[in-house]
């Protein structure tokens, strides 16, 4: 057996060695094999998407290379479309997951009710929009929805309600048992059960419901480049995400509260010992986290739909994004969101289908594979650190 060098990690070294260690690892033989095969798998996936995949045939009977669109060289249009879908979906993922990761990073609270906050805001948005815009039996189309009154106002109210809920939860239930991670997680699990059931009792009216985008973002508003068109509403999601990301960066790096939060992420006991009122900062962070879930919920209700069960889906989305990216890291949330969105969007159309009637979705399996690979290489996520 080869001895494992004691100080193999973290030693300053020359660029060539760094690069070599990044590519093939510097540990045991199995690690080298693992990293090499991972690299080959990534290269193969890229080659597959760009060149190898075959377009669907006229008869509908494909072979092992047949995918929904075929390779990017054959069908650059749909490739670009999938790519934009990935990036915009990653935007929404980032908005929701950044709230989750902020709360965890600072307070070590795993907010299992994050998905419930998302769904609560989504339903408040849907209900308010329907009553503000006087929706009939057939629902609303975007042309009936004005930007400020029927979309932004419901959004603001939903975000405020969810933030208030978050504040109450934090002050009543989480404040006094700081540091008992499992107990706090259990408390938020209990909350998520209660909120989910109350949403079913008061909001769900048989089936999925959608919030209409305002008229300026309606389905007829498309970005057109030549013959290629792309809906502005999805680009808007990306813009919101970039805005939130920049806002959070500025907040964390340019304000005093942000300074305290960053210090608290590193060592909250020391921050408290220095006489800083960290309890208030905890409350602020939790409210911001809930507000981000709420914002994501309203956008998600407009982009997709709300239904009972969506809360669990978005709790999973947030969990996977931050587990991949690393808990408590904003940059990690962005990278995790991109990777996760890439997996779920590209796997849906670039994994071979075996015929026209096939309905099996393999994206969930590939997402799981992504999670496993990341955790096998970095147990605390790509940008995470041990607690």
């Amino acid at each position, binding site marked *: 057996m080869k001895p494992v060098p004691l100080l193999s990690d973290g030693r300053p070294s020359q660029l060539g060695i760094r690069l070599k260690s990044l590519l093939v690892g510097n540990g045991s033989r199995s690690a080298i094999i693992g990293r090499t095969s991972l690299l080959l798998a990534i290269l193969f996936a890229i080659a597959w998407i760009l060149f190898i995949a075959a377009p669907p045939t006229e008869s509908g009977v494909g072979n092992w290379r047949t995918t929904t669109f075929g390779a990017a060289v054959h069908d650059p249009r749909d490739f670009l479309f999938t790519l934009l879908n990935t990036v915009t979906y990653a935007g929404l993922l980032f908005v929701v997951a950044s709230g989750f990761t902020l709360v965890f990073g600072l307070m070590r609270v795993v907010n299992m009710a994050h998905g419930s906050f998302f769904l609560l805001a989504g339903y408040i948005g849907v209900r308010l929009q329907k009553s503000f815009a006087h929706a009939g039996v057939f629902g609303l189309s975007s042309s009936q929805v004005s930007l400020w009154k029927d979309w932004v106002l419901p959004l603001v109210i939903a975000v405020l309600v969810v933030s208030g809920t978050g504040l109450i939860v934090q002050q009543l239930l989480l404040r006094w048992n700081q540091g008992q991670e*499992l107990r706090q*997680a259990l408390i938020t*699990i209990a909350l998520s059960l*209660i909120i989910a059931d109350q949403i079913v009792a008061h909001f769900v009216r048989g089936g999925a419901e959608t919030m209409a985008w305002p008229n300026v973002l309606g389905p007829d508003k498309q970005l057109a480049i030549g013959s290629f068109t792309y809906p502005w509403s999805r680009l808007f999601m990306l813009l919101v995400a970039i805005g939130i990301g920049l806002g959070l960066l500025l907040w964390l790096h340019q304000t005093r509260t942000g300074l305290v939060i960053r210090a608290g992420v590193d060592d909250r006991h020391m921050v408290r010992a220095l006489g800083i009122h960290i309890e208030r900062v905890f409350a602020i962070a939790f409210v911001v986290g809930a507000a981000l879930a709420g914002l994501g919920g309203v956008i998600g209700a407009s982009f997709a739909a709300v239904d009972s069960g969506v809360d669990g889906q978005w709790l*999973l989305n947030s969990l996977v994004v931050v587990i991949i990216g690393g808990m408590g890291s904003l940059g990690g949330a962005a990278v995790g969101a991109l990777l996760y969105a890439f997996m779920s969007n590209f796997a849906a159309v670039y994994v071979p289908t075996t015929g026209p009637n096939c309905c099996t979705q393999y994206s*969930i399996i590939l997402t799981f594979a992504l999670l496993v690979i990341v*955790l096998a290489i970095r147990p605390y996520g790509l940008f995470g650190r041990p607690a």
Partner: protein
Amino acid sequence: MRTALLVRPSLNRSIATGAFVLVALGPLVFSSVWVSFILTQVFWYAIAASSLIFLSAYGGMTSLAQVSIYGVAGMVLGNTVTTGETKGLNLGLSPWIGLVAGIAIATAVALLLGAVASRSTGIYFLMLTLSFAVMVNYFFGQVTVVSGFGGIGGIQNHTPFGRPDLHANRLYYIALVTAIGVYALLRYVLRTPFGLVLQGIRDDPVRMSSLGYNVALHKTLAFGLAGFVASLSGVLFVWWNNQISPSSMDITAALNLLVIAVIGGLNRLEGAWVGAFVFVIVSDYAQSVGFLRGIGLTQTRFETLIGLVFLVIVLLSPNGLLGIWEWVRAAVTRVARQMRGRKDEPPQASPA
């Protein structure tokens, strides 16, 4: 003092013995609804919950993936034994093969998940296993070859012991014996060197690692053992329920199992039984309590009710009902001792 120490275990033990005698007499004591519906349900819930408690109390790994493991066992069993009347593979093999295949594949899946999760601890472990649970749920929902959203039905036609709906007592005793066997097995494992190392890892993984124990391997094997236990529960569940669908292992089901374990007591194996019993009773009888109906908590709002119970227990007693029970016992003993002490003491020692 000495008598208190002697009385202490014997009270718990006599309660346990009484409960055991009652359930062993089973059909002689209880009505058929209790036998076929409530108690059998309690048994398979208790088995699944004891796998969760075993991991949590003795391995320091609070897992939300136990429901997925039991779901895998049930799905494999369903796919293996059914003969064309339902979705899935409909392999039509012998029920015994289905039983063995279900347990074996579910245990293998548990070992795989355990290997992935074994390097994380505490709250990370909880999140990771929750992700596993939801992914397994989606897997069976989306991969139509093996299940699809509707799931697999008609499993009761293919059991090794006849139709459980016609022979409720058989399933009752199978579940009872399995549950007791699981309890004995887990108690035994905890006393073996493996179990002791596992508890050492729970308390201080770094020290155990420096003593030369393979921490990740022990955690993986513990997860595999718990997966085996959970798969037994899954087999009993499909026999009892006749069908299994992705919703049997969704996030609500995963949380319900955690609720059972927490209500009973997350730090003792016996908690699984207490929690399962309370959970089933609450879910079946909540609607007949007038007060609860009066404040709008009926059967349809069961999740709210169970969520509130869960919340109150987590807030008041992290060790669940067993923790409350121990606290009450200790308080009673203390008061009794004080009263007795006051009586026994010579008068000059107590001026009051």
